[in-house]
C-alpha cells in the first residue's frame, strides 16, 4: 500500500473520531490540540486503524509521545506493513 493511501485512511479515521475541526485534517497538526483527540479517543483511533490495516500496535507505543500527528501514525503503519511483508518473505 502506498504511503499516501495510508495517510488518507488515517485522516479519515481522525475526521470521524476527532471532536472538532474534523473537516480538514492535516498530516502534521497536533491531534490533541487541533482535533480534540484526547487520550481515550487516541486509543479508539488506534484500535480502528488496527482493524483497517490488519496490524497490531506494540503496546509500548500507545502514547501521545509516539502518536501526536496523523503522519506519525501513518509512518508507523507503513513501516509495520513493510516489516511484516519482509518477515513473510
Amino acid at each position, binding site marked *: 500500500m502506498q504511503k499516501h493511501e495510508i495517510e488518507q485512511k488515517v485522516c479519515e479515521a481522525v475526521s470521524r473520531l476527532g471532536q472538532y475541526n474534523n473537516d480538514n485534517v492535516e498530516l502534521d497538526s497536533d491531534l490533541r490540540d487541533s482535533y480534540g483527540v484526547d487520550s*481515550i479517543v*487516541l*486509543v479508539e483511533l488506534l*484500535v480502528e486503524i488496527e482493524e483497517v490495516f490488519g496490524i497490531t500496535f506494540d*503496546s509500548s507505543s*500507545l*502514547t501521545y509521545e509516539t502518536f501526536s500527528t496523523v503522519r506519525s501514525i501513518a509512518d508507523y503503519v507503513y513501516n509495520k506493513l513493510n516489516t511484516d511483508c519482509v518477515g513473510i518473505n
Partner: protein
Amino acid sequence: MKNNITGKVPRYFEPYVNDCFHNCYAAVLQYMGLNPDIILADYLSFMYDQANDNIGVNYLYRLNTSVEFSEEELNTSLEFVYLPATVNFSSDLRDLNGIKCKNKVNINMYVEDDPNVAYSRLKELIDNGKPVITAVDLYYMRYHRAYMKEHGIHCVVITGYDEENNCFELFDKFRLSSSDFDGTLPMDEVNQGRVSDNPLPWGEMNKRPIRNLWMEICVDEAFSIDDDKLINVLKESYTRMAGKRNILGYKCGLDMLEAFEKDLMLKKEDKLDLTNIDWTRVYWYRAYLNISFKNIARNRKRFMVFVKEIDRLLPEDMVTEVCNCLEESSKHWEISANIALKMGIKKSLDLTDELVKHLSEIRRQESRVVERFEGYLSNLV
C-alpha cells in the same frame, strides 16, 4: 455590589496534579504564598482491595454518591494538610478562621443546602480577599464540552461577583478534562451547577448531589515546613510501599501490586467473556482501570517533583536514580492505562499478558525506589 480579586490569583495547572480539586487548591495555595508541590505532595503508595477489585494510591478509587467524607477518609494522603470531616456550614460551630490543626494547612469542606447562605458566605470570603474553591456540575458550565450533555462533579475557583450584571468571575484551568476557562459566567448558571443533584450515568436512581460544596483553605501563622516533616513524606512512603502500614484497613505497597498482577492473570484464565455484554467487567477495564492507572501515573510524577523539591536534603545519586525510576514507572502506568482501555474497547482479555508485563516493570522500578529509601532512612537513625 461587586468585588473581585481576579487579577491576584495564579491560574495554576500542572499535568501531574491529582485532580480538579487539587488543581484549585494549588491555585489558592500559591495565592497564599505556599508551594503546592510541597503542600500537596501525597505519599507514594499502592492500594488494592481484592474483594471489590478497587485500587488506589492512598485511598481506594470507587464510586461515591455523596460529597461528604469522614475525617479518616480525608486524611490518608498528605503530610502537610489536615481536612476535617465535611460539615454543614450553617450548623458548624467552629471559629470562622477555620483553623483546627495549627501545624498543618487546613482545608475545610462545607456543604450548605440553602443557596442564599452559600452565596452570602461566598461574598464574605471574596470581600475578605479569599478566592472560593467550589464544586459545580459540569452540565451547567457553558464553557465545557459536557455542557447540557453530561453530568459530573468538578471544581472551579470563583474570584469575584458582580450583582449589577449577575455574574461571577471564575477560572477553571484543569486541562486534563479539557477545561481552560477564565472569565465571567451568569450567576444563575453557576448556582444551578452548585445545587445540582448531579445524576450519575449508571442507573437513574444514582446521583451525587453537589450541595453547594465549597472549600476554605486556612493556615495558622505558626505553620511552617521543616526538614523533619519533609523527610517524613519519604518515611511514610517507604512504610506504605514496604507493606508495613495498613491504610483504611487495607495493606499497601509492592506486595499488593504483585497480588493485583496475579489476579489479573486469574481473570484471564477464567476466560471471562467480555463480549457477552458483561457491562460491569468491560467498564472495569475501559473506564475504571484506565482512569485509575492514569491517576497513579500522575502520583508518580508528583512524587518525582517532590523529590526534586527537597533534593538539597538527599544524596545526589539517590535523587537521580529515584527520579529516573519514577519517570519510568509513570510512563508504564500511562501505557497500562491505554492497554486497559484497549481491552475494554476490544472486549478482549488477550492483552492481559501485555498489561501484566508493564505492571511487573512498574514493580521493578518502584522496588528500586523503596530500596533507595530504605538505605537512606536507615542511615538517618
